């Protein structure tokens, strides 16, 4: 059992869990009012959109790809929701449907480019980042406030948990996404295929797995998650602004990496990603409680954590003696067009 636990796959999750408990514990000892159920729940409430983004990103990264467009797609979703609700006076549910569809279609489009023309995901989603921002400005250059009743209700309602503690609808949505994401990745054919593609795309193809369909679906899914995260973000800010979600793609990637997902693909878990987001949120809260530190220290701390975790992953790989395999598997596989 200890042997299994020390398997690097579990180990990185254990390390991050330990780190989270340590940080939360340290905050509880050092600052009065830090240790409360509400403060813990706030991590989910304040980072609901990041959690949703990160779940989508986990799928992409496990498949060995990357999606840099999620931040600007989130921005586009906030702009679209705000504009359609405030200016076109459409029903909120219809708006949400349109926004989700829009995100999914854009993701699908990028997935097709990546899969059918064998283009690097990095460049295609980078162009998606530009595209999303540009489309934001086409919708509107100004901030659009939302006064719609449905969005107001979503922003202000609270579900009681225990005693005085509560969660917001956004947090509930995020947790549902996490639950579905974890289930799909672990227990469905689609999820297992993603691991196989990330492990070795050519082998997955030779095994007869539906590589083409799955890879396109992954990017469509990530687009869907970004759009949903954008809607949750409008619940949080009650407005649409073209710069919403600037740089958030890297926050999402960072939390996924901290959560133990290998950037080379093939290994990782949604649970680890949740822990990554919790650590990210705790750093922010700690800096707020500390009071004197500039909030930009968060970014430095996140950068350092990414370094630490990549370094640890590298050490484990080296110990397993898979260094050579890793370097050679980075050569892009020339795959047949089937799948």
């Amino acid at each position: 059992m200890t042997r299994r636990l020390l398997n690097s796959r579990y180990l990185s999750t254990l390390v991050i869990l330990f780190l989270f408990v340590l940080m939360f514990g340290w905050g509880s000892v050092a600052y009065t009012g830090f240790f409360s159920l509400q403060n813990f729940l706030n991590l989910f409430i304040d980072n609901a959109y990041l959690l949703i983004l990160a779940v989508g990103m986990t799928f992409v990264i496990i498949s060995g790809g990357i999606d840099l467009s999620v931040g600007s797609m989130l921005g586009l979703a906030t702009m679209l929701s705000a504009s359609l609700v405030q200016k076109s006076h459409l029903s909120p549910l219809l708006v949400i449907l349109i926004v989700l569809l829009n995100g999914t279609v854009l993701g699908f489009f990028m997935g097709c480019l990546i899969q059918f023309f064998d283009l690097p995901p990095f460049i295609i989603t980078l162009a998606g980042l530009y595209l999303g921002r540009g489309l934001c400005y086409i919708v509107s250059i100004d901030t659009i406030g939302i006064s719609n009743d449905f969005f107001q209700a979503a922003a202000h309602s609270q579900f009681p948990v225990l005693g005085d503690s509560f969660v917001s609808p956004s947090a509930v949505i995020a947790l549902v996404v996490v639950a579905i994401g974890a289930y799909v990745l672990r227990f469905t054919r689609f999820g297992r295929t993603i691991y196989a593609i990330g492990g070795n795309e050519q082998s997955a193809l030779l095994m007869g797995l539906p590589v083409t369909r799955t890879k396109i679906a992954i990017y469509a899914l990530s687009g869907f998650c970004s759009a949903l995260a954008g809607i949750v973000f409008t619940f949080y800010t009650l407005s649409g602004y073209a710069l919403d979600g600037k740089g958030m793609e890297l926050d999402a990637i960072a939390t996924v990496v901290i959560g133990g997902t290998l950037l080379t693909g093939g290994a990782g878990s949604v649970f680890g990603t949740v822990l990554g987001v919790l650590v990210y949120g705790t750093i922010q809260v700690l800096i707020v409680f500390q009071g004197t530190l500039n909030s930009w220290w968060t970014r430095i701390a996140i950068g350092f954590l990414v370094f630490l975790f990549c370094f640890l992953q590298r050490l484990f790989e080296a110990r397993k003696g898979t260094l050579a395999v890793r370097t050679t598997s980075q050569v892009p596989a020339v795959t047949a067009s089937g799948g």
Partner: protein
Amino acid sequence: MPSARSLNRSKLVWPLAALGCLLLFNLFFTPNFFHMEVKEGHLYGNLIDILKNAAPIMLLAIGLTLVIATKGIDISVGSVVAISAGVVAILLGGDLAGHPKYPLAVALIAAVLASTAAGVWNGMLVSRIGLQPIIATLILFVAGRGVAMVLTNAMVIWLYVKPFAIFGQGYWLGLPFSIYLVAGLLLLTALVTRRTAIGLFIESVGINPTAARFSGINAKNILLGVYVFSGFCAGVSGLVVCSTVMSADGNNAGNLFELDAILAVVLGGTSLNGGKFYLLGSMIGALIIQTLTTTIYAFNVAPEISQVVKALVVYAVSLLQSERFRHRIAVAFAKGRAAA
């Protein structure tokens, strides 16, 4: 029988053609686009503006070309620009009278040194620890902007030190000073990579690092070197950026520059899969991006919308570079011929 040199040149045909098309479009549709005049001994005009505004991206693209040739990528350059601007700003100080806190030379050297140190960090992560380049530089991408903001205490520092303005606004012999910086660095890089074997080493590491190592090339040090150089270029670029607006804004200085610079390199014909690199191509790539932006301005379209155009250009260029796409087009073309 074309020589290797002319083949090398022919690779520049596509980027040059793209730039030519853009300029031709402006010739017909933008009034006074090519108008130039001499005011107080300086040349003014759209073309000069394009060169001047493209200078920071061109500087970054020089370093990035070498990084991409090794099949790497450096997404931290934008943040390093912010660090360089931050360092020079705090060392010069925001004294309204324009008296620098430290001598100008000290501030300049410190800024470039700090950026080069950032390059060393990236290079060590890639070459010694063996992290994927995108992740290794992601760390500084995230943390670098934090460092810049902490340096400047999250405030925009305005500079009043007159001599410093030369990098971004100054003129020399009728042309903007930043153009000479670009030309100098480009010439130096071209000399070092093409007149010595270093360029060949870089390309061979990009094509096959294992084979390069077996043929006696110190692949690790080559990798380290290109990232250090990229950091250095980002530092110089940061000086130009900071001097152009005479202020250091840790949040916005160099924002999204990494994307423009990578785009410039790719437009210039250097493949993201490493190998052959084209310094001149990258410069033309940067000019294409800037001409595109200037053209969009000239049509009174909101500058932000230019990003949509940029995205479409990236898609088009990536498709043209995709072997599978070219293959499909060729097959479709052949079928069309067979049918006819």
